[in-house]
């Protein structure tokens, strides 16, 4: 910092100098962009589960996580007590069955990461540091993605451990669990992008939550209705195409293509199956891109 006054060098007062109070400036090592972004990521990841926040903010994420794991305990219990030779609910189907919990988790925790800084204006403090707005947005996005992945992958891991320790076929279970993990990553990137974008646009917390739920669950409800009707009318092609329009139906379609799980109107034909995966990746990239644009615009203000 430029020193406009005759400096006392911090050693004893000089008459007339009112700026230099003699405090020692920081001359230790300064961490670069990577360290700042990493710190932001870790802090955001902890905040998504209420860690480092008030006790009351821990209730919801851990309650949801607990309810999400409850069926695993029951499934594994049933598996080992009555000696089934396969899991009663597949790894990939699990996330589909508990999508309500997942939606509430993502919708409720996205505003924690994206809305609070905007609403309270603390975003200006972050952007005043040597941290570009894009790095801030990516760090926040990564925090929410990591939290969503924890939510999605923990049940898969627990089911897998239960299945392997229950001595089901190791190779089969590993392959199925890995496929489910891949699908979970694809789903999580889409959900993170959508909910993050909504939370960064709508600063009112409650509104962002409902809007996210409306997009995720109402969208899924509409697509499911269309798929049901198209199957009933023996015109499955319409349902297969309709499935491209909501994150959960994309997940179900991809699951139908990748595993032998039964779903409504699974995509048939290589082109459409590839389209399901392509749209999932595109959804993740486009929503992340929109998030970056949003924060660049905010930083420019």
């Amino acid at each position, binding site marked *: 910092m430029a020193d406009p006054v005759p400096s006392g060098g911090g050693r004893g007062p000089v008459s007339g100098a009112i700026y230099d109070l003699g405090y020692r400036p920081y001359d230790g090592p300064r961490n670069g962009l990577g360290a700042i972004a990493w710190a932001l990521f870790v802090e955001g990841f902890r905040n998504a589960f209420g860690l480092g*926040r008030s006790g009351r903010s821990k209730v919801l994420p851990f309650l949801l996580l607990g309810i999400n794991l409850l069926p695993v305990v029951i499934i594994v219990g049933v598996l080992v007590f009555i000696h089934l030779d396969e899991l009663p609910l597949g790894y990939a189907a699990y996330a589909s069955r508990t999508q309500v919990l997942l939606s509430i988790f993502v919708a409720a925790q996205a505003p924690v990461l994206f809305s609070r800084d905007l609403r309270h204006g603390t975003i200006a403090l972050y952007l005043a540091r040597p941290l570009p707005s894009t790095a801030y947005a990516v760090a926040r996005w990564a925090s929410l993605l990591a939290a969503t992945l924890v939510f999605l992958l923990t049940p898969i891991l627990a089911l897998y451990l239960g299945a392997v320790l229950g001595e089901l076929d190791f190779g089969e279970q590993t392959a199925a669990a890995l496929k489910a993990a891949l699908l979970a990553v694809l789903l999580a990137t889409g959900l993170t992008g959508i909910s993050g974008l909504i939370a960064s646009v709508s600063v009112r*917390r409650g509104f962002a939550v409902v809007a996210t739920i409306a997009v995720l669950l109402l969208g899924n409800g509409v697509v499911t*209705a269309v798929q049901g009707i198209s199957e009933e009318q023996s015109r499955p092609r319409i349902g297969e195409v309709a499935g491209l329009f909501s994150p959960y139906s994309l997940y179900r379609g991809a699951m139908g293509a990748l595993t032998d799980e039964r779903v409504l109107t699974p995509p048939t034909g290589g082109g459409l199956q590839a389209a399901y995966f392509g749209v999932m990746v595109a959804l993740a990239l486009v929503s992340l891109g929109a998030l970056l644009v949003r924060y660049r615009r905010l930083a420019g203000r």
Partner: protein
Amino acid sequence: MTVLNPTILRLSAQALLGRRRGLVLMLIPGLVLVLAVVVRALTEEGVGYDIVSEVGYTLALPIVALLAASAVLGPEIDDGSIVYLIAKPVPRHAVAVSKYVVAWLATVALGAFPLFLAGVVLDASEPGRAVAWGFASLVSGTAYTALFLGLAALTRHAVVIGLLYVLLWEGLLGALLTGIRWLAIGPWGLQVGSAISDAVDEPGTGLTYALLAALVVTAGSVWFAGDRLRSFTLRGDE
């Protein structure tokens, strides 16, 4: 004592329909209606009535009620400007009732009525069925709105708790534990609907119980909201 305050009615309506929130509120029933029209245009009469029950009644209606109820009270509590409102010499219960009336009108106009319309569009040959769904959503929409208003007055996390109630309690658990029908608003509305048309599945709580329960929840929640406003304390963000 006047129960309704015109100024609060006007301000609440502005908060409800202003800007993006109003847009989303319109979009949700719009989506259901568009879907109904498209399905009707492509298939024969009576196909896809699940849209009314599965998409409209269990998802769109509670979401509209939640948005409406939290819109009239939530933001003011969130940013603390509610203190300017309750500093006025207006009875707190009148504040709550006025806000409820606005939210209720929105729920009826954008939640219950579109369901009736969607029913008519999907199956014009059987208007009784659409009327039944309309009344079912009228009853449950009335109770949902009141419940969510009470929640909004109780806690900052009203929206999340409301969603947990609708999606987890009534949705996931309600499908597994049938006894939940005694303690869930959705089945009460269905009970009323099934009294009008046989096409609506009867949850089996009895019409009297359903109506009484809906009435108790509605009146109790609105009274509770007023009572919470009476003893309101402002809390910081967590």
